[in-house]
């Protein structure tokens, strides 16, 4: 396991999670969620879990994000409305 890469990935995870919490635009937050899931997928492959990486990439970054986007389209886009 590569410690530098691990450190970078962990930093990115916290960073994207923080951005997701702070963004007022929900659509942007959903896109950041997709990025978060992708970084998580890379993290899984770093942790020697290729099955999880595939699942996370398809389910987390794919399906869940699409569900978020659809919901945002059908409801509101800004957080404070």
């Amino acid at each position, binding site marked *: 396991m590569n410690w530098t890469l691990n450190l970078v990935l962990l930093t990115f995870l916290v960073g994207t999670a923080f951005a997701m919490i702070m963004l007022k635009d929900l659509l942007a937050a959903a896109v950041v969620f997709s990025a978060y899931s992708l970084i998580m997928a890379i993290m899984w492959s770093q942790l020697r879990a290729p*099955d999880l990486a595939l699942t996370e990439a398809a389910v987390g970054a794919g*399906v869940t994000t699409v569900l978020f986007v659809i919901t945002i389209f059908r409801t509101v886009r800004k957080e404070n409305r």
Partner: protein
Amino acid sequence: MKKLFVILALAALGVVLLWVVGKMPEMGDSRTPDKTHVVPRYIEDGVKEAGAENLITDVILNYRGYDTMGEVAVIFSALCAVIALLDREKRGVSRSAVDASQVRSSRIVRVTVRILFPVIFLFAVYLILHGENSAGGGFQGGAVIGASIIVFTLVFTLIESTRDIPLTLRVILESLSVLTFLAVGFIGVFKGVEFLTYILPGLSPGVAGALRSQVFMMSIEIAIGVAVGAIFTSIVFAMIKEENFELEPHIPEP
């Protein structure tokens, strides 16, 4: 005020958790309890006993197959919950926000998706069928199938997508994974062994037994893949249909 209070409470929780984690087995150590107590048998004998080279497939389909049956039931219940809340799309008339968008998807996107769609589908089939001896399996492949159909729907329209897949077939496919699990389990029950046993009596253990076990696992994998794909598709279809558009006449595409 409330914010400060919550942050302080969470910080306190964090310190306590850190104090707990400080005593936990070190990460990456191969002598921790979780790697010495139960796991060695899976690693040493898993391939021989359970019949797949991918140990994760062994665990989720064979050693802990009952959990996976529960997992299939979880996603099936999620589908039932979504449909009980939102209802299914009305076929051929449903329009979605995507269909009604003023920004039409460009020709480049449409052509790309038309070309990519079969490739993604093929990759999903590979994942499902190859889950035995490399990374992949029913869930992964099913999710990719679902995602590919979802992308197709987002680029083309809900009307077009629902026209292609008959509803009756989809309802049957959704229950398929649960039913296949039960069918495989009941074969064992009728033969007088435990539920979800793949190696049946009357078969010499060895090549034939391994083959039979592989057939069972493979059929479950395929069923999970197809069902998960169908379930994700149905969930997304139920969510994107706009109820306001339902009664409008269908506008043919230019």
